[in-house]
């Protein structure tokens, strides 16, 4: 933190740099957002050839771009399942890591390896495994597992950060008042860390919803949305691709905004109950 109150020259330079960075992050996505509203005769680039929702309607016509509705449904259901499982398992494992247990080092490094191992390896390995065992890979089975190898490490790392700052005296107080371990968890720990759990859920949801590489060999015969999009990039050359991109980005945004709104409500609710006491 600069000590003097006047801003140094570098501040303005860095502000401009950061603004450019944000523009770089959002600019391209906004561009396809605008281009997705091309008129029916519009192409993949500027100038805009009229404005319409034509390409959005195209999305929902079965033969135009494959099974968009089905793949979207599958992706959303899968993301919800991954979200719930990620929250539960991350919380449970996070609790475990607060105590000393043999093999905690191994489990920790296993989880880290899961995060940084190239996704295509996971995909290939699970595909081969299911293939050899003779189980049909499905989006709700093998793909669920492969997504968890990507979301659980993030979840666990967030839980580490949470429990590092967690004040253990609350639990001690609960125990002193004869709460069972489950009651302590249910009425003390979970309410205190609820915002972070919502965060873990958000991570799980969006990571799974957008995951492509870990899905190619694990989804089986039915496509998820990212697989559908990847297929489209190679054979669709109309703005319908942009319409799809904009729509899926919008869904991700809705998930993020929804989560932030929940967090905000939680905070307000907590502030209010605290005042009443």
């Amino acid at each position, binding site marked *: 933190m600069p000590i003097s109150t006047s801003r140094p020259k570098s501040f303005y330079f860095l502000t401009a740099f950061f603004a450019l960075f944000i523009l770089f992050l959002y600019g391209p996505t906004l561009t396809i957002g605008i281009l997705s509203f091309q008129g029916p005769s519009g192409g993949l680039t500027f100038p805009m050839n009229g404005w319409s929702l034509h390409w959005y309607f195209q999305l929902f016509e079965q033969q135009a771009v494959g099974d968009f509705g089905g793949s979207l449904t599958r992706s959303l259901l899968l993301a919800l399942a991954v979200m719930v499982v990620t929250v539960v398992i991350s919380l449970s494992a996070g609790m475990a890591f607060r105590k000393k247990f043999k093999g905690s080092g191994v489990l920790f490094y296993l989880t880290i390896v899961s995060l940084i191992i190239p996704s295509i*390896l996971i995909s290939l390995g699970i595909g081969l495994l299911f293939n050899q065992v003779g189980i049909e890979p499905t989006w709700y089975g093998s793909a669920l*597992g492969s997504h968890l190898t990507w979301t659980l490490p993030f979840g666990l790392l967030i839980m580490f950060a949470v429990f590092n700052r967690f004040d253990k005296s609350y639990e001690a107080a609960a125990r002193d008042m004869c709460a069972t371990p489950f009651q302590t968890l249910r009425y003390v720990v979970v309410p205190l860390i609820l915002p972070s759990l919502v965060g873990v859920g958000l991570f799980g949801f969006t990571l799974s919803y957008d995951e492509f590489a870990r899905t190619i060999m694990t989804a089986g015969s039915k496509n998820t949305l990212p697989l559908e999009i990847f297929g489209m990039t190679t054979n669709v050359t109309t703005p319908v691709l942009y319409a799809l991109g904009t729509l899926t980005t919008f869904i*991700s945004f809705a998930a993020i905004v929804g989560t932030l709104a929940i967090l905000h409500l939680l905070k307000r609710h907590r502030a209010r109950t605290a005042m009443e006491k």
Partner: protein
Amino acid sequence: MSNERSAYLQALPLFTIMVIFLVIPTIMIVIVSFWDYNAFSIIPDFIWDNYNFLLTSSVTWQAYANTLFYAVTSWAITLLIGFTAAYYMAFHLRTTKSQTICFLLATVPFLTSNIIRMISWIPLLGRNGLVNQTLQTLGITSHPLEFLLYSDFSVILAFVHLYTLFMVVPIFNSMMRIDRKLVEAAIDAGASPWQVITQVIIPLSKSGITIGTIFVFTLVMGDFITVRLMSGGLSASVGLLIYNEISLLQYPAAAAGAVTLLGTVLIMLAILFRFANIRKDL
């Protein structure tokens, strides 16, 4: 219930998932990499042919050279941008609120589809794209620049676009933990702003830099979608070779490629982990 036993129970679900979906599949890949195959199926066997072919093929070496080039270039650029952005947020923004807003602004794109973020470069960089149109209108070039799209340039641009955040977040995290008194002490002792950065802030954000480096390196090393989409199929990477073999159902060949890639990544990680104790820094 004893403490240790409950810890085992709580860790069990994570452990089970990791064994079924990480450990066993990896073992499976190693096993299959020694198998034989023909056009129709894969045949259990123990042969070295897959590795032999892989390691003597110039395509492999070219792909490794390409991939390393992508990894090192993307790493250098993401580090530069990521460090500057994190430094700005951590040391130049004065309120927690403005820090949170900027942090969220930088994080949100990471939560949307990578493939969509790649495609969105096409209307900008294409032959008739916005960049070429602008350059020509301004009279800077007379004909469209071809290198913008479907080239090494666009591949690296996409990597930087996708992964800079993996640098920003850990570096920002370790910067937020630097005691501000150290910076003040350095200034009082007569250090120039540049000396403060190079002699106080950089050494103290080392663990963040290392974690970011690990992310960017491993993500780029294993990538095949970005290289495929952004090079227009003109360049190869190790991941893309594996993906192509998977598409051709040559699983044992793909598995041998995957084992080699895994070995390479693990060696790099072993080197990188010497620079930071991740568990301690969490």
